[in-house]
């Protein structure tokens, strides 16, 4: 059976994300991605997290394309239109990072601007550290790359720890589809707009419990200083590597972010990267692209023009 494409999701969704679906084999899985703009232009790699897919960047892309950049947007394996492995071990942090390494190698990206949101941060930055020569600049938003997220949200029993606890996770997020529909809704500012232009696209690619597997599995990889943490050492190595990066960097955050809160998490990036630009703030909660996608695109154009094109 042929994989589903953006066009298969219907005219409303395809109209807002009017790009050609492409597929690439990465570590044995089929990754969906789009690759727009001049092939020889500076590439901008936009990475989403949980539970979204490339559609998250729909309003961010047009300013970048209009400015002449090549824009590459993968769907992380397990989400969007990419393959959904059912085996738990496929979804380790290292495997997801390795899938991005395979992508940037296959597309031969050179001097790319890496743009990370949510799990796009730990995975994308791990890939960058594995292929430093392929990247020239980095932008982060509502993400982290150290052992524990600095905000209180991830330590709370309600809703965070309960929503992906054993048995409760596959029930709430798998069978009962708590994310992406309601979950993303709660993490946007203009919820009417999200209902009108966002929700259907996220639910269309997570229509079954099987398709929602990563939505409850990925949260389990966030270290919380518990004996059962899966990735403490991995994040420790990631943080050490990220702290040593001196690429041009920028930090963009949603003012209303109540997951990776702007006062607790965003400053940590400037502790790691004293040279980084920002803090640029926009209207938005955790899924700030839903509220300020185009503004983020303009910020990225401004940043990339100075950081990469002017070199």
């Amino acid at each position: 059976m042929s994989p589903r494409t953006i066009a298969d999701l219907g005219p409303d969704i395809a109209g807002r994300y009017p790009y050609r679906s492409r597929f690439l084999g990465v570590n044995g899985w089929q990754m969906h991605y789009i690759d727009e703009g001049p092939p020889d232009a500076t590439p901008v790699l936009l990475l989403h997290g949980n539970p979204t897919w490339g559609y998250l960047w729909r309003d961010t892309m047009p300013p970048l394309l209009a400015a002449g950049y090549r824009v590459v947007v993968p769907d992380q394996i397990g989400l969007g239109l990419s393959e959904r492995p059912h085996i738990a071990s496929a979804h380790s942090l290292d495997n997801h990072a390795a899938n991005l390494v395979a992508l940037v190698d296959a597309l031969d990206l050179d001097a790319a601007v890496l743009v990370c949101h949510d799990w796009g941060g730990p995975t994308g930055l791990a890939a960058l550290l594995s292929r430093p020569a392929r990247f020239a600049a980095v932008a982060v938003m509502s993400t982290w790359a150290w052992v524990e997220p600095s905000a209180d949200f991830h330590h709370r029993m309600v809703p965070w720890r309960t929503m992906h606890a054993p048995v409760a996770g596959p029930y709430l997020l798998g069978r009962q589809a708590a994310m992406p529909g309601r979950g993303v809704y709660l993490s946007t500012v203009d919820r009417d707009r999200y209902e009108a232009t966002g929700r259907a696209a996220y639910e269309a690619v997570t229509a079954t419990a099987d398709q929602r597997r990563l939505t409850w599995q990925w949260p389990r990889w966030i270290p919380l200083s518990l004996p059962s943490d899966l990735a403490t050492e991995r994040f420790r190595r990631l943080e050490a590597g990220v702290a040593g990066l001196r690429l041009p960097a920028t930090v963009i955050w949603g003012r209303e972010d109540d997951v990776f809160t702007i006062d607790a998490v965003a400053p940590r990036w400037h502790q790691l990267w004293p040279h980084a630009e920002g803090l640029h703030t926009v209207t938005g909660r955790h899924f700030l692209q839903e509220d300020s996608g185009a503004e983020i695109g303009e910020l990225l154009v401004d940043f990339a023009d100075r950081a990469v094109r002017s070199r």
Partner: protein
Amino acid sequence: MSAIVTVLAEVPPGLRSVPLLVEPELGHYPEFTRFFAIRFGLDDDPFGPPAVVAVDGRAYELTFLGRSGRPFPSGLEIAALVVDLEPLDVEAADRDLYTLVCWILDGVGPPWSAEAFARTADIFRIPARPND
């Protein structure tokens, strides 16, 4: 809410198993593994038949999974036991799963609780949560 779950001594005859939910990583929080091991005597008899519980008169099969290098049980499959070839009542199964999850969380004990689960289900407006 008060979860009403009864552990049955044997599988009622004439039922077929309909998979509902797979939890491959009970040990993400080890206290969940210990709850099932103790509640169903799995340390003494890990290779026995699946456990069977009843919720509101409907039967559910709990099959415990093992994985090399992990304490047993490392995972859990929950299946509805449905009469003969009759269709599964999906809405009832989801309501019963809600009750079953509450029973598990209260059984595991603090910091886990059915109350926290109910509040989380309210936040996400889970369709199967009980009416107020």
